[in-house]
């Protein structure tokens, strides 16, 4: 049974609970359809401290997935034939065993996706990462707030835009963005404030026109991702007095079709210490898999996880508002 989970009293303000919205749509309780993707968060360590980050990631975060947990993940990938491993963080590249983990996933036959903030790729010790990605046919999902310097740097700090362009050029030189060679470079867009993202097709056209036209940069697709009311972004919402209006907007735009296709239904999230979660957002709330499903990667039982009931809360409106939001963009 899915529980109505209170997230810091978010549903104490007269807003409809997420469980209630699911019930009215005939989707309660939300259940898994199987684990098609293992999303592995290899740690909160990051070279940036972005204002929208739900992980609160930054240079001082000490949580880094140890190799023994990665070995457990690989055992599961191998034994259960998980087709996709989606590596995230923090800046996942900063995990000292990141390259080994990618290579092992590929050796086992899984398709690897990696999240990158781009700027880490121009730092010392990471310059050859685009070629490493290309050798391993890694799908790169690169976060870029906007196609102009001013807006990007406001969100991520001075110099971010130029460093991101430099990284994108390196990825293009390594073969990404050309099309036809199987090397996929996708961009991820988050709104720069307390509002929802535009239509994915529309903002993708704008990014393509500006990035190709002004800078000669090529990419495959752009994913729009709604900012989740968690972590550093939640601090911003509360500090700026935007929390209530933002939540009202998310709740008001609840889309049952987006809930039906929520990524948690086909994804299992692994925390840096091996704890299992229904998604990366539940991970940040410490809201582990429950209802009898295994709670740690060492206890992975496919049958139990394939049919698990998903833990939900008010933050789930972030993935189900409007066209929906996932690590792969819109879902409805």
């Amino acid at each position: 049974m899915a529980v109505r989970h209170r997230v810091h009293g978010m549903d104490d303000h007269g807003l409809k609970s997420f469980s209630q919205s699911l019930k009215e749509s005939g989707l309660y309780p939300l259940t898994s359809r199987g684990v098609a993707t293992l999303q592995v968060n290899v740690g909160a360590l990051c070279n940036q401290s972005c204002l929208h980050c739900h992980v609160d990631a930054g240079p001082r975060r000490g949580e880094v997935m140890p190799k023994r947990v990665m070995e457990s993940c690989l055992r599961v990938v191998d034994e259960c034939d998980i087709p996709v491993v989606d590596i995230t963080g923090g800046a996942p590249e900063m995990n000292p065993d990141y390259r080994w983990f990618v290579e092992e996933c590929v050796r086992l036959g899984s398709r690897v996706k990696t999240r990158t903030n781009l700027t880490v790729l121009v730092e010392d010790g990471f310059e050859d990462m685009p070629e490493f990605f290309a050798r391993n046919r890694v799908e790169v999902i690169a976060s870029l707030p906007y196609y102009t310097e001013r807006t990007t740097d406001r969100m991520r700090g001075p110099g971010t835009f130029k460093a991101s362009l430099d990284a994108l050029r390196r990825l293009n030189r390594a073969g990404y963005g050309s099309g036809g060679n199987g090397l996929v470079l996708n961009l991820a867009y988050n709104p720069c404030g307390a509002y929802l993202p535009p239509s994915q097709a529309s903002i993708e056209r704008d990014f393509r026109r500006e990035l190709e036209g002004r800078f000669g940069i090529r990419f495959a697709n752009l994913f729009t991702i709604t900012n989740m009311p968690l972590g550093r972004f939640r601090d911003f919402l509360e500090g700026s007095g935007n929390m209530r209006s933002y939540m009202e907007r998310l709740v008001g735009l609840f889309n049952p079709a987006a809930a039906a296709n929520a990524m948690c239904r086909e994804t299992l999230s692994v925390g840096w210490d091996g704890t299992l979660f229904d998604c990366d957002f539940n991970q940040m709330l410490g809201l582990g898999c429950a209802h009898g499903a295994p709670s740690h990667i060492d206890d992975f039982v496919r049958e139990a996880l394939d049919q698990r009931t998903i833990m939900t809360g008010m933050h789930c409106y972030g993935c189900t508002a409007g066209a929906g939001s996932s690590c792969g963009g819109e879902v409805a």
Partner: protein
Amino acid sequence: METYYDPHDLSDFASVGECAPELWKKFSEWYSSVFKEGALSEREKALIALAVAHAVQCPYCIDAFTKSSLEKGADMEQMTEAVHVASAIRGGASLVHGVQMKKIAEKIGL
């Protein structure tokens, strides 16, 4: 303190239709069609609306279309330029009447 403009009135906009529902229905359908993507993108339409909102100095519209412009993918640079366009037209519209002033003055002057 009571004022003529209350931000909460914006969310009560639909109440204007209570006494003339057919007209409200027609307005609503036309209004939502206007802002759909066509020859212009939704972002471009939102920017035009933002500029017009400043030209007509409607605080409800400024509120709504600032948020709409951001949600349609515009940034502050684009939005500020749109407001300058509106301001230039307003300023230019005043200034061009200077020709009228000039002609009248010339007509009655020695």
